[in-house]
């Protein structure tokens, strides 16, 4: 297949795939919580745009509905809820320290290469115009996991989790032109409920350990001992 021979719309689909990958990297590299949430919102916009574009190219009208659902949920509603939680918890200006940012970025690049290797046999079986972007969608899933692994704040881990869901949805769209509508609606509803439950959890974690740093959960002991420990640390 020669790239230059594709139509402009198909080139647009592939360009959007590259931009989605870029937004994953942006999320990974952001050390500010609000900027990370904004990057997630942009990824939602891009996934919705890519879905609409694929609907146009492949002539699959039901994907327009998925695109609208994705846009309203992942680009508007969930980022808005997360944004509100961050403001309410007063952690908007907190900077999160990622241990070795350059190494994490290189690991993410290696994950992209790995998912290319994994997706190669799948691509050979597919005849869709979007088959080359399967590797990208897998990479988005893996980078979402990497975000969850490298972050300490509960809220950025949730952003990583949502990004995995973005990647899975995008995989479904590019590999098989989307899941059945019932499944899609179910997943969307699950995600919404998950956001609400996460929100409640944030407040609970915050109330019990006075921080959203989940590393501190691992040394959770009885209250009196915690006080001693913090005294020792200081």
């Amino acid at each position, binding site marked *: 297949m020669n790239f230059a021979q594709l139509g402009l719309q198909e080139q647009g689909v*592939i*360009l959007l795939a*590259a931009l989605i990958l870029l937004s994953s990297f942006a999320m990974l*590299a952001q050390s500010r919580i609000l900027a990370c949430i904004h990057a997630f919102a942009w990824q939602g916009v891009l996934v919705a745009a890519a879905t609409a574009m694929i609907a146009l190219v492949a002539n699959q009208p039901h994907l327009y509905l998925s695109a609208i659902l994705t846009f309203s949920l992942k680009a508007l509603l969930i980022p808005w809820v997360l944004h509100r939680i961050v403001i309410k918890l007063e952690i908007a200006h907190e900077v999160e320290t990622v241990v070795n940012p350059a190494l994490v970025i290189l690991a993410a690049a290696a994950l*992209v290469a790995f998912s290319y290797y994994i997706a190669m046999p799948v691509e050979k079986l597919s005849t869709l115009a979007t088959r*080359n972007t399967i590797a990208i969608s897998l990479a988005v899933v893996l980078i979402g996991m990497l975000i969850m692994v490298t972050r300490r704040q509960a809220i950025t881990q949730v952003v990583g989790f949502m990004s995995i869901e973005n990647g899975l949805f995008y995989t479904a769209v590019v590999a098989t032109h989307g899941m059945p509508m019932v499944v899609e609606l179910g997943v969307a509803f699950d995600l919404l409920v998950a956001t609400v439950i996460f929100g409640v959890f944030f407040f609970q974690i915050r109330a019990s350990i006075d921080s959203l740093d989940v590393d501190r959960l691992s040394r959770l002991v009885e209250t009196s001992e915690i006080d001693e420990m913090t005294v020792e640390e200081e």
Partner: protein
Amino acid sequence: MADLLNLQGWLLVLLQTVLFVLMAPLLTGWLRLLKAWLQNRSAPSLSQPYRNLLKLMKKEVLVAQTTTPLFRIAPYVVFATTVLTAAIIPLLTVHLPTAAIADVIVLVGFLALGRFFLALASMDAGTAFGGMGSSREMTIASLAEPAMLMAIFTITMTAQSTNISQAIDFLLGQGLVLRPSFMFALLALMLVAVAETGRVPVDNPTTHLELTMVHEAMILEYSGRHLALMEWAAQLKLMVYGVLISNIFFPWGLALDNTPHNLLLSFISLIGKLMVLSVVLALAETVLAKMRLFRVPNYLNLAFLFALLGMLSHVILEAGA
């Protein structure tokens, strides 16, 4: 090989290189004009860089007693390598005899050679500022060069040639194609260009006697015509990056044959492209503040990441199954 023996071709190269060298101060003047407008200052005239160069040419050359002959040779080497770089790049027309001899890796090599002599000369006088400047310059260059080469390799993989004129020929032939790899390579090259030419987020070109300066610290000991050559070379380098970016990523308008009509058209489109590109640069310089030196590696890592993503998206998305 027919290009090599063509007298008209060589004359055209000469003409184009002279035009390149003469236009470089104009680009700097235009950039200063734009920045002054954006920052609500009254702007210097467009010919001010020429007048500065002329003034410096007339002035006496003062050389510190501690220096070796290298100090006197360096400005000529730096200027000559930059002019040779300019001679390789297709400015108005694609088919040049020089482009047939030297490819894009030679271009990076010429720039590195110039930088090497600049760094040596700045250490030669033995002042603290000179050593500091050259160490900073080499730090930045060692990070910027891999990013630049990676971005260039992305382009050459698409065009299947490291020769700039063949690559541009190929890109002109296929018309408008939205390549994600080119988008990333463009971003990477723009970031590298800002770092390499010492523009605002990395270095401040208008600074004098400031602890954070890089390029100015290196040419602090120079005076008279030596300083003029160094400054001219810096302006030329800015133009080299500007023309490289605009003619590789937006090659439309470039003349494929050497008829006067096409050359004129190519000249007009070049002026337009450079004017737009310098608006982008002036805006960035006005909006952004200079970074701390220790954040420059992060900035160049970003450039490298863009270049790497460009290469990955070329392999994954464009090469096909």
